């Protein structure tokens, strides 16, 4: 049985959706952990779900950065365990320095709630193994999703294959029209240097069954079972 921890900060709202999504994946069990009591020992993977942690006060994800759960998450990530942050979870991972860059107000200034397409740019993560070049259709819902980093960081991410997801049209072309928030180089998700920590703005947990309008999120989340049952870290290093 693969054990997945779902972190809950004050204002997190996607943890139950993740619990439902993982309930569809064979041999995976989840537990929701309150941020003040987040002990990740005994877990195989951790999710930082979306929401509005601490009301997005100061900057989205900024206050969660100094929560006890984030300290524990740093230790867990340093062990090479798979971590996935979606939406506000991606913002938290960036604020905490577990991922490079930052997420700014959407270039349009508008909150975007829509279905978009992303192309899998790297299969060298536990979440995207076997999905190279696949175009996935997923929902987004965010006001601060414009990914930025300094030019040297962007160059390094591109060169080292650490851009994991890119906004594209349905055919996989990264056009300006397919970019919902003004992100640099249409970047929708990135990985850390070891590949075990991944963040993305779209919501894989909201597209795991046909009732929800799509199943591409399941393809990403189901990977955690494969990654851990198989060769583990060797799979993506």
């Amino acid at each position: 049985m693969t054990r997945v921890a779902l972190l809950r900060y004050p204002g997190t709202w996607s943890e139950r959706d993740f619990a439902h999504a993982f309930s569809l994946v064979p041999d995976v069990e989840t537990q929701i952990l309150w941020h003040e009591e987040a002990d990740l020992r005994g877990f195989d993977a951790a999710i930082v779900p979306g929401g509005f942690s601490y009301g997005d006060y100061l900057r989205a994800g900024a206050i969660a950065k100094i929560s006890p759960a984030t300290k524990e998450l740093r230790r867990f990530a340093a062990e090479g365990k798979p971590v996935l942050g979606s939406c506000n979870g991606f913002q938290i991972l960036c604020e905490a320095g577990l991922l490079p860059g930052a997420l700014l107000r959407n270039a349009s200034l508008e909150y975007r709630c829509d279905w978009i397409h992303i192309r899998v740019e790297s299969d060298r993560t536990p979440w995207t193994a076997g999905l190279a070049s696949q175009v996935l259709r997923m929902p987004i819902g965010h006001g601060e999703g414009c990914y930025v980093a300094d030019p040297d960081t962007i160059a390094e991410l591109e060169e080292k294959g650490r851009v994991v997801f890119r906004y594209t049209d349905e055919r996989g072309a990264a056009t300006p029209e397919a970019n919902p928030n003004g992100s640099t180089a249409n970047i929708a998700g990135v990985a850390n240097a070891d590949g075990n920590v991944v963040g993305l703005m779209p919501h894989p947990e909201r597209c795991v069954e046909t009732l929800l309008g799509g199943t591409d999120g399941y393809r990403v989340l189901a990977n955690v079972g494969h990654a851990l049952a198989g060769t583990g870290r060797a799979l993506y290093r």
Partner: protein
Amino acid sequence: MRFVATLHVRTKPEVRDPQGEAALGALRSLGLDVSKVRTGKEIVVTFEAVDAHAAEDAIRVMGNELLANPVIEDYEYDVKEAAAA
């Protein structure tokens, strides 16, 4: 000793400020000859420190660790000993 620090947090010049751009368009629609708008925020913190040196150290921790994100923002600060109540 009680101190009051005022931090001015601004988006780095090379980082886009869509809020400033929106305000720029709106100011122009008022008929004003405006060429640039950059937004930021002011944060005022009242806190205790043993002396002025320790107060400066504390402000840098506040700025670097939480109140500004060094990836996208710069900050400046001004610190004064709080006036006696």
